[in-house]
């Protein structure tokens, strides 16, 4: 059972209170992009073994979207942060680096 903290309302709760929303920080392909770029944005996913950034919604709470960094090999949650970011904030990256020194970083 994952324990997540909603950065919007500050509540820490079990995963049944939240709804997972897939990979975070997807960059929408802009106007004039190729079919391959749009395909990649729509369907292709990193699906990593290890550190994963993902979207969650506090479905049975405040209802807001937020983002989380989590390990898919251990289910360890490194931290959560607001959805209004284009890449993981420095403190989340530092928290991951502290526990996963070999992690290559957000790409």
């Amino acid at each position, binding site marked *: 059972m994952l324990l997540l903290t909603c950065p919007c309302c500050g509540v820490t709760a079990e*995963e049944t209170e939240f709804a997972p929303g897939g*990979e975070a920080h997807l960059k929408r392909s802009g106007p004039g992009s190729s079919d391959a770029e749009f395909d990649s944005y729509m*369907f*292709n*996913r990193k*699906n*990593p073994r290890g550190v994963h950034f*993902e979207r969650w919604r506090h479905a049975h709470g405040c209802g807001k979207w937020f983002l989380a960094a989590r390990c898919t090999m251990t289910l360890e949650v490194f931290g959560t942060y607001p959805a209004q970011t284009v890449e993981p904030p420095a403190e989340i990256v530092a928290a991951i680096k502290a526990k996963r020194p070999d992690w290559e970083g957000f790409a």
Partner: protein
Amino acid sequence: MKHYSAFAIAREAFRQHTGWGRAWASPEPRASYDVIIVGAGGHGLATAYFLGKRYGIKNVAILEKGWLGGGNTGRNTTIIRSNYLQDPSAAIYEKSRSLYETMSQDLNYNVMFSPRGVMMLAQTEHEKRGYLRTERANALQGVDTRFISPAEVKKLVPIINLDGPRYPVLGALWQERAGTARHDALAWGYARACSDMGMHVIEQCAVTGVESAGGEVTAVNTTKGTIGCKKLGIVVAGHSGALADMAGFRLPVESVALQALVSEPIKPCMDVVVMANTVHGYMSQSDKGEMVIGGGADGYNNYTQRGSWHHIEETVRALVETFPMVSRLKMLRQWGGIVDMTGDRSPIISKTPLGNCFINCGWGTGGFKATPGSGYAMAELVAKGEPGPLAEAFSMYRFREGRFIDESVAAGVAH
């Protein structure tokens, strides 16, 4: 390879069963092979088997990071059916189901295929209409299914509760020729047949990298050294994303944990497979008497081979409504497998950006039933370099082209 027969059992009985020998060899890898298949689960072994059987390609190695059939092949609920809505799905699953019928004879290995019938309960008006549509689609596809009344459901499954508190049973889609088989036997039987053809089944050999030059794979790096290959087949289910990453491309696949559990063994009480998709639980009784129960998948990426507790609760709650006797059962074991889900919940049997590298993945929550058909189609793709009629709709480029095989909408749930 020793041929298994009644005569062989009698002969061995006279010499204390000392003459059986190993079912498959455990060789050290050669420097290179014509074809390397990564993943010695059911699909990988079936691919190798049909490469040898149909195309005479026998200089083949099947690499397995763990032990034979220790991944999803040994973690499923062994259901075999082909009552799909979309034509490409029905074609490959029906081919697969028909191959199961003769598999024990083909492999000279008892896979205990039991065509006991699979029933999919309709528990809402919407679901009933959906299954009536599937019944008609199946009639056109040549798949033998029938929509049956609640009275017929009760006759086939006396332990069922037709008047559940939330979802009464309004009928069911019934496929009489569907059923179950022994999952381990499938892996062991294929491994024995592959080994007999001179192929190398290499266990405890994890692939750590893929070497390529000029858009072609030249070798794979493994924990047992670098092994050269002329063609590479990737058949690793939940870990497809990791293998694709080594080969330098991305897949429209996400890996999640799917759970199953079994009860204590009880006396025979249900001789068909029942799937209740609205409440999301499915159940059959194994030959040992355990009730084999399949449940839901997590919604988030997961490689841990264990799922969330609340999914077990949801599954068991659903089954208690439909089968009240389940409330008196103790559950013996629970486990999870990592399944690779595509956007349209249909598999991928496809060429890749690397010319001589092929991938078979995305079977999601329903790969066991497809094992022989998947191997059959994948072997054709690897041997000829182009997909045959069974595989051509399942290209990974269908997403770019908008040619979904949308079983996620057709089934409404994992399938």
